[in-house]
């Protein structure tokens, strides 16, 4: 049947309003739960840099939150390594992705401190967020440095849209394990970070600044390399500050 234009317009308007209300209502109701889920996911990623994925998977959300609050302290630093955290500026609130668009000197840099239970002084490792570009979209992650401020304790990597089976493999435990035990500074104290190489299947266990690559995902690997190098250089002042403190303490 052929309806009048008025009918079509009224029908469309009513449909739009009904569907719009339904969607905004859902969004309102589910919003807080979604925020919680996102916050929990972030905590899991941070913890992923220091404990294994299997351990995290075995935890319930409540346990993750508990573990996180017992073992992780956080602070925010600027490019010079100076602490700038205050009531308003906390590491959990800093969105690394947002600051990524600003010049490096103007960014806020969160630092997460993994410490022994109940004793924030007994630091086990420092966790630094990373953010950069992969092949198709953003990649990010968290890098844990041991207290010598040189050895990588672990890394978690995540991505928004890398190719499944190729670049997306950065999320796999097997790929991330390759970074464990590698060093970010050379003997003279120069920052060299860790390079993921082209090609796969070679043994880089003798080289502390190189890890085996991902076959077919060289551009994603380059993205990871650039991200690591960039963020380690942004955090260099903080890292150097910590390592000299420890050198003094050791004397």
């Amino acid at each position, binding site marked *: 049947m052929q309806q009048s234009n008025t009918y079509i317009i009224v029908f*469309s308007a009513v449909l739009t309003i009904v569907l719009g209300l339904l969607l905004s209502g859902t*969004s309102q109701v589910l919003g807080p739960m979604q925020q919680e889920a996102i916050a929990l996911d972030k905590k899991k990623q941070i913890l992923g840099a220091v404990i294994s994925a299997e351990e995290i998977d075995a935890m319930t959300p409540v346990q993750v939150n508990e573990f996180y609050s017992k073992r992780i302290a956080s602070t925010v630093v600027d490019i010079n390594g100076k602490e700038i955290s205050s009531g308003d500026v906390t590491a959990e609130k800093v969105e690394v992705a947002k600051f990524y668009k600003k010049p490096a000197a103007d960014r806020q840099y969160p630092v997460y401190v993994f410490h022994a239970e109940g004793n924030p002084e007994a630091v086990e490792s420092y966790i630094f967020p990373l953010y950069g570009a992969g092949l198709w979209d953003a990649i990010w992650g968290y890098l844990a440095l041991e207290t010598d401020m040189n050895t990588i304790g672990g890394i978690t990597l995540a991505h928004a849209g890398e190719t*499944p089976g190729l670049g997306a493999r950065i999320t796999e435990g097997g790929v991330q394990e390759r970074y464990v035990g590698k060093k970010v500074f050379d003997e003279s104290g120069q920052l060299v970070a860790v390079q993921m190489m082209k090609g796969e299947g070679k043994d880089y266990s003798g080289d502390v600044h190189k890890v085996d690559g991902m076959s077919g995902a060289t551009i994603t690997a380059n993205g990871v390399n650039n991200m690591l190098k960039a963020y380690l250089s942004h955090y260099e002042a903080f890292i150097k500050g910590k390592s000299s403190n420890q050198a003094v303490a050791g004397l």
Partner: protein
Amino acid sequence: MSAETLEKAIEKKPAEALFSKRRRKLVADPLIDDNPITIQVLGICSALAVTTQMKPTLVMAISVIFVIAMSNFVISVMRNTIPARVRIIVQLAVVATLVTLVSEVLKAFAYDMYKELSVFIGLIITNCIVMGRLEAFAMGNKPYDSLLDGLGSALGYSWIILTVAFFRELFGSGSVFGIPVYNYVSSIFGPDFSLATNGLMVSPIGAFIILGLIVWVQRTKTGYVEH
């Protein structure tokens, strides 16, 4: 859908049993004889994309079942009021709303799955099966029949993608539903007996191969030939 079901749908009687033979056929037909993936060759894109592992595939299947069944139902309820000239837009609006609902619910209650399926949930909107069933069935049939028809098509889609995912996960990652089957096999038969995973199965090519084999087996059994 075959012409046969259409005719039967038209000559239906007022007091029909809840699961009459005709209605059972609405659900059963798309499972094998008129399967949306293997016979109609619709919805291939998501069948390739999400089937590397069974868990996300199951979530995808449930989402698609919800979207197809509900959109079929809703459009069928509205079918006599929808202006013919804007019907595609109306269908799209309804489907898009349902898909967004699914996506919001996943984001709140299964964030890991939401992350893993990411764009593919949104892409259910463009899944040809959804619009295909709306145009071919829901616009001309009663709500309950449309609901059953949607369920049938969605289940036909689901069992195929789950089968594909089963083989892809088993051969590609050595596990089923995340349970490391290959590791268990190695632990039973000793470390010398280790099974290698096949990287091809993780890439979309693996899905093509599995899907092709399923279509082959099915058509050999049913004798279906494309005209």
